[in-house]
């Protein structure tokens, strides 16, 4: 008998358990928990420093660099960040720093500069590294890169619920709308593209002034960002995103004083865990190390 193509529908989610699937918040898998019990934990470092932003909201680059260094050495278990970077990249690597250029809330230039500086110090040649977002498919360095550093700010997003590290690779496809279905649940598939697969060495989720809610076509208002003054750093993008998402959800509840789930639910994070096996989304599978300022940490 001919096998008919199976179309994934709402009913598949209903059968798997509605509450845990369609209506779930972040970090909750909707399939079996067997993987949750057997998978090794992912280390995530959350570092915060209230002095990283001056009273006007401008970034203090020297504080940001210090945060990055401390997070890296803690993540990699090394005595200093230089050693950590040398474990992440080789001098022969061609490194693409996948940034995010959304003008309301972009990856800070100070962070991009700090990453490039550390790559240089680790021996990567200047002409073998590049920072880019929307031009990655045309960028000669990205075309031949052997390693990727993935960094972006976390924010709520119209189609995917959250703009995440997982989603940051959408510029590696010539057709981003192909990933919009069901709140972009298949964003994990981006990580199987040949330009990307197996190349990501580090993920840095920028939580300096994250955005927890959005309205209007531009989905941005200064009313919905706050000075969290943090970075979430991990080798596991799913674990970093799940951690950031928990912070965003907690902020929403704190701000709105009532249950206000992220909408649409960013289940691409848990799907990246259960379907695409890109990392751990469940809190029990994440080793979260918190450093620095803990006032208003929300997690």
């Amino acid at each position, binding site marked *: 008998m001919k096998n008919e193509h199976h*179309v994934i529908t709402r009913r598949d989610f209903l059968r798997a358990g509605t509450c845990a699937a369609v209506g779930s918040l972040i970090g909750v898998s909707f399939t079996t928990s067997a993987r949750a019990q057997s998978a090794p934990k992912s280390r995530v470092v959350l570092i915060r420093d209230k002095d990283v932003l001056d009273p006007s909201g401008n970034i203090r680059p020297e504080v940001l660099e210090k945060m990055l260094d401390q997070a890296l050495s803690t993540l990699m278990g090394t005595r200093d960040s230089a050693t950590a970077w040398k474990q992440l990249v080789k001098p022969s690597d061609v490194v693409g720093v996948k940034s995010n250029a959304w003008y309301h809330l972009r990856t800070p230039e100070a962070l991009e500069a700090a990453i490039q500086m550390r790559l240089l110090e680790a021996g990567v040649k200047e002409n073998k590294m590049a920072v880019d977002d929307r031009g990655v498919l045309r960028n000669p360095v990205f075309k031949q890169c052997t390693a990727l550093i993935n960094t972006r700010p976390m924010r709520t997003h119209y189609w995917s619920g959250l703009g995440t590290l997982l989603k940051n690779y959408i510029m590696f496809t010539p057709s981003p709308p192909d990933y*919009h279905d069901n709140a972009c649940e298949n964003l994990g598939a981006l990580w199987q593209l040949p330009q990307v697969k197996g190349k990501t060495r580090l993920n840095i989720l920028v939580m300096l002034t994250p955005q927890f809610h959005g*309205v*209007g*076509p531009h989905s941005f*208002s200064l009313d919905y960002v706050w000075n969290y003054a943090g970075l979430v750093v991990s080798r596991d993008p799913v674990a970093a995103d799940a951690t950031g998402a928990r912070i965003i959800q907690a902020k929403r509840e704190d701000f709105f004083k009532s249950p206000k789930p992220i909408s649409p639910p960013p289940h691409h994070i848990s799907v990246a865990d259960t379907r695409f096996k890109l990392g751990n989304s469940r809190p029990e599978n994440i080793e979260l190390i918190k450093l620095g300022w803990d006032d208003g940490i929300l997690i």
Partner: protein
Amino acid sequence: MITLLFGSASMAHGQSLDHLKAGLPDRVLTWTKGEEDRLYDERTIFDYIDGAAEVYRAYSMQRCLSRRYITPQGPAVVLDIFDMGSSEDAYGVFTHDQDGEKPNLGQGAYYRAGWLSLWKDRFFVSIYAERETQATRAALLELAATVASLIRTEGPKPRILSSLPVRGLQTEGIKYFHHHVVLNRHYYLTTENLLNLGKKTDAALASYLREAGAAQLLVIEYADGESAKGAYAAFLRHYLPDADSSGMALLENKKWCGVRLKEKRLAIVLEADPRDLAASLLDETMKGGMP
């Protein structure tokens, strides 16, 4: 059917975005025009709007005029006027986000949390403040009134709305659209375009509350009967393989789902409880005026 949804609207007579631009004020309360106006088309809109740009393209957006107003005393105010090509599509984009207060502007408007949206004729207007204050609220309302008055004509709503049964219809929440991706934003049905939605299909999604219970109704008008028949067959095969002879099935969440086909029109009842409500809505929809 629901004539209350239709005003005594007249068709647009070629009023252009350029005409509107010429009439826009340089000053709104303490805000003055900032940098030069920008114009975007269906390709370049992605450079301006991240994420949600797909919505405007799904409604055949022609052009978007963007103007920024600034003041030393507070946050900037951003005006975006989208020429959607038809009043039906301007209405459709407007129905994409429906919440908040309802100021009496244009052919419909909402204000919430520093964002005002309105539609009139073929234009969808969005005005937002980068931070909400009492002053920005006043500026948004004044600017919206000005823009609405510059658009001289009104336009009709989509004809498909007349096929929605009136009783129990929650008029505030009606969604009008063409594309699969927009349907999934409002109600995730399937990852693939099972219903073969596209530019040539008109679709409406509405909620119902009656004494008997609640349901959602999706009505789609196809360009031809063959397309409708194909979508009907695909829906039954992939989504309701367990449907009974009347096209109904009780789903895993204990809600009824049903589908009915008549000529070019497909009706699907979703999340219905009880069964009789689903059956009634399908019957009434098929009795509604055919285009």
